[in-house]
């Protein structure tokens, strides 16, 4: 089966559908026409830009280009994870903890997959490295954002409980333990749901893409299973690391709850 290349005209037809929805929204005063158009334009512009960059990176194929791309992706994911938290740490700690946790989990998992599982040569081959890392970062980012959001919001709301435990002689670890576990769970639930629903309720995007691109379904399925497991590992370790770092930052060296470190 050949990959059918899409012409600009094909995309324009799809864009007409979006315009049609926007038109209906205007007619029924849903009030999302403007947001819809902006989002559609953003999608097209962002993806076109990424396409251009990927063309360059794929053409060069050097480690330095792949590493530079990976770094930019990491920093953008770190910023996005921090932006999704309602109560952030001051002084860039939310960004720092999230980015560090993502680096540890996503990069290690991706490199492990490239070196040991897929065994592609060279191991940084952008065709494999970039999409893998992208999918891991995207999912880990969600987990970290949810976990950290639950942690900081929970500490804010349950200040009295945490401080009462401290006043009764608990250590900071003991006082925050319940909340820590709750936050880790909150960060991992989307990943659990995605694994449980895979194939039954939804055909995962990557698998669909591979099938559209002409891969035999069975090959696509194997890659999708691999990706799901990598995402589970990346999100799990990333969320645990971020929540652990965040919980440490909530207390000072005398185990005092420092909500002044939250915005």
């Amino acid at each position, binding site marked *: 089966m050949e990959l059918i290349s899409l012409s600009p005209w094909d995309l324009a037809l799809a864009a007409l559908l979006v315009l049609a929805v926007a038109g209906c929204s205007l007619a029924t005063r849903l009030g999302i026409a403007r947001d819809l158009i902006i989002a559609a334009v953003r999608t097209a512009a962002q993806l076109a830009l990424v396409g251009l960059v990927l063309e360059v990176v794929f053409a060069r194929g050097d480690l330095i280009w792949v590493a530079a791309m990976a770094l930019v992706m990491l920093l953008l994911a770190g910023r996005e994870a921090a932006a999704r938290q309602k109560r952030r740490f001051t002084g860039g700690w939310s960004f720092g903890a999230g980015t560090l946790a993502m680096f540890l989990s996503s990069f290690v998992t991706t490199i492990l997959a490239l070196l040991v599982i897929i065994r592609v040569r060279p191991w940084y081959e952008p065709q494999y490295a970039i999409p893998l890392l992208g999918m891991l970062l995207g999912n880990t980012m969600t987990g970290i954002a949810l976990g950290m959001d639950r942690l900081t919001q929970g500490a804010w709301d349950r200040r009295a409980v945490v401080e009462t435990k401290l006043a009764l002689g608990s250590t900071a670890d003991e006082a925050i333990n319940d909340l820590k576990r709750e936050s880790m769970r909150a960060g991992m639930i989307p990943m659990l749901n995605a694994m449980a629903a895979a194939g039954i309720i939804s055909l995962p995007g990557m698998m669909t893409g591979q099938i559209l691109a002409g891969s035999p379904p069975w090959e696509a399925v194997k890659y999708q299973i691999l990706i799901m497991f990598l995402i589970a590992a990346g999100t799990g370790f990333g969320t645990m690391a971020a929540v652990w770092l965040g919980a440490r930052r909530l207390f*000072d060296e005398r185990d005092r709850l420092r909500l002044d470190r939250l915005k």
Partner: protein
Amino acid sequence: MLRVEGLQVRHVGPASFSVSAGECVGLSGPSGSGKTLLLRAIADLEAHDGQCLLDGTAAHAMPPSQWRGQVGYLAAESAWWHDTVAPHFPNHTPDNLADLGFKPEVMQWSVARLSTGERQRLALLRLLAGKPRVLLLDEPTANLDAGNSRAMEGVLARYQSEQNAALLWVAHDTDQLKRVATRSTTLSTGGQLTWN
């Protein structure tokens, strides 16, 4: 037993005083003068300058959990995290339930059913169960009627003498402080202590 040296937290202090074993010191002052802040700083829940010592050992010379286990702070509003009362008392049912008008069944009650006053009385028993040597009490009888207030004073007086504990008792009610405290001090809006 408890010595406070040059304690300063935000607008409060510097404050220096000590509370001996078996003594109860009363602390009053207008709302917003920082009485709670002062107690929290002594319990090391609030970052502060100066230092607090227990029998000559500074707070920072021991792990914070050990300090707070010995210098027990009772907040004005109690906090609860389990569904029922019992799991908040990890060791055993306190033997002084009856002194505050509770039957043993109270341990099985759901926390959501308790009134503010019941929670306040149980919070004191929860604190005393850890046998702290110093008690920092933030308006311990604020939500109680006269009868329960007296019962609470009785339980505290007995703990003070039996355990030879040092008490620092914050109250708006100066009559109560006259009853329970051996001496009293007032915190001004400027954050300075005046001894009466």
